[in-house]
């Protein structure tokens, strides 16, 4: 015993002991997943959350595969950050990075867009005329925002001058949307919020913006000058019934009025009016601030490719994949990741996080000539921010069951500080780790 303490007490001895323990601890690491040798040609359309992440994962797991990723945009957007930018909590650069920094080495990045997809011939033709033949196609294009569907609207109207917010468009538009919201919560008036009738990415974001706007007005001491109206497209505020009631209760408590089955069809920026379609005909209302979230659809190249559902979402064009394996129903070598999927739920980054291991499993199983085992259960997560400093972690699956990630610790329908901390501090980091294929 005294010998050991003699060793430890000398500086050199102590450092040696410490280094030895560290080496032991590091040695007990985790074994990596098995790599698979293959000559498969894989084409990934889109280098966003889904595309970049699957590129990293496959590049890690497959040895010898030829992976090509097609995306013409140099910027990568952290879309979950758009709401934070639009409410003045983060600057535009918080949600912007470069596509290139997330892509692995050893893959071919085609900086163009897909112009034509021919799943019968297993070929993609790019806008630059390149022909990419594939053994496997992963469609991760994301969706397009159909701004033209709102008559009278144009993206250059976004900002404080007209009182128009359109925070889905880009980080820069989200920043201009904040200026509009900032002016409105200072001056007062009627604030209109709402969502489109189509499927959309993050059905919670329009609600978050409305609740945050109300909180910001309250913090500024101007709540009595402002009116908040939320226009729901359906006879509910949220698709999952238990969450609809929670949101409704919060809006009732905070004196936010809401209208059901009101869908924005036109705005007049000069007269500051908005026209909504309702079951009782068109209604036109005045506003001082309006947040515009447009109808959302699959990109035209997808709709022209034959990959979309023929009999569902016919005005939107989401691709026809099996809701559990995410493999295309008619083309076994085509998979979908992210917003482009025609599945009952899950156009969120959190869903993408779950799509990735499922597609990776089934694609690699197919290369190896066996059946994959993973299944996507429709997991969707929405950290529903209810005010600056508090959020409700809303998580559910295809069956409208609540599926909390931290059961017993983070209560699903409670407005908590810890959920806000996660959104503010940990979520982007988790998203980035996902992009790199490590989460």
């Amino acid at each position: 015993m005294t010998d050991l303490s003699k060793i430890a007490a000398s500086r050199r001895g102590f450092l040696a002991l410490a280094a030895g323990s560290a080496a032991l601890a590091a040695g007990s690491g985790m074994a990596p997943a098995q790599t698979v040798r293959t000559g498969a040609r894989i084409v990934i359309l889109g280098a966003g959350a889904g595309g970049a992440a699957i590129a990293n994962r496959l590049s890690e797991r497959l040895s010898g595969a030829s992976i090509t990723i097609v995306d013409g945009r140099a910027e990568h957007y952290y879309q979950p950050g758009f709401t934070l930018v639009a409410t003045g909590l983060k600057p535009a650069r918080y949600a912007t990075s470069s596509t290139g920094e997330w892509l692995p080495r050893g893959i071919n990045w085609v900086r163009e867009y897909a112009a034509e997809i021919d799943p019968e011939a297993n070929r993609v033709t790019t806008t630059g005329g390149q022909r990419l033949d594939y053994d496997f196609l992963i469609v991760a294009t994301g969706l397009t925002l159909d701004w033209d569907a709102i008559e009278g609207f144009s993206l250059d109207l976004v900002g404080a001058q007209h009182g128009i917010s359109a925070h889905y468009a880009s980080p820069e538009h989200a920043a201009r949307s904040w200026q509009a919201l900032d002016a409105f919560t200072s001056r007062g008036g009627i604030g209109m919020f709402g969502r489109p009738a189509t499927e959309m990415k993050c059905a919670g974001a329009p609600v978050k913006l409305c609740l945050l706007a109300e909180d910001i007005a309250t913090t500024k001491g101007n709540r009595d000058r402002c009116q908040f109206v939320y226009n729901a497209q359906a006879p509910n505020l949220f698709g999952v019934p238990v969450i609809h009631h929670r949101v409704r209760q919060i809006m009732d408590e905070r004196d936010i009025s809401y209208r059901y089955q009101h869908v924005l069809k036109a705005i007049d920026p000069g007269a500051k009016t908005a026209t909504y379609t309702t079951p009782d005909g068109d209604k036109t209302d005045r506003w001082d601030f309006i947040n515009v979230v447009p109808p959302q659809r699959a990109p035209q190249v997808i709709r022209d490719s034959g990959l979309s559902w023929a009999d569902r979402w016919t005005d939107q064009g989401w691709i026809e994949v099996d809701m559990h394996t995410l493999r295309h129903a008619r083309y076994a070598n085509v998979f979908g990741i992210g917003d482009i999927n025609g599945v009952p739920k899950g156009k969120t980054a959190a869903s993408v996080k779950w799509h990735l291991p499922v597609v990776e499993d089934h694609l690699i199983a197919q290369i190896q000539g066996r059946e994959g085992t993973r299944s996507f259960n429709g997991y969707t997560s929405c950290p529903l921010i209810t005010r600056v400093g508090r959020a409700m972690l809303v998580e559910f699956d295809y069956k409208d069951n609540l599926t909390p990630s931290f059961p017993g610790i983070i209560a699903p329908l409670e407005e908590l500080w810890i959920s806000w901390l996660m959104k503010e501090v940990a979520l982007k980091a988790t998203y980035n780790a996902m992009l790199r294929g490590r989460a």
Partner: protein
Amino acid sequence: MEEMTLGTLIAVFEEMFGRVLWWALVAAAVVVTLAWLYVLIRDRRVSWRKFLLAQLSMPVGAVGAVWFVMWITNSGMRDIGGPIDWIVLLGVAVAGAIGLAMLVYVAQSLLRGRVTSET
């Protein structure tokens, strides 16, 4: 979340702070802890005088840590909701208290040298 493994957690912390800063923070925490253990072994006992000063710094560490976390996350005491929030708050306070106490103790020991007798 698919799986909360240690690997995922480390990846997230690396992204949060940046790889270099994160491992530098880990290294700093390890160094301070090891230095503290070293000092204890070297002196073969706890110096209660130094310990007193370290203890007095604990409330400062606790309040400082809580204030810091709330400042960088744009939140405040009014945002504390359910029991888990109180647990997180206490956890942050305790971490700040212990961290600062250790640092104060170690700083005193290394600066003043070995204790031969208690005055």
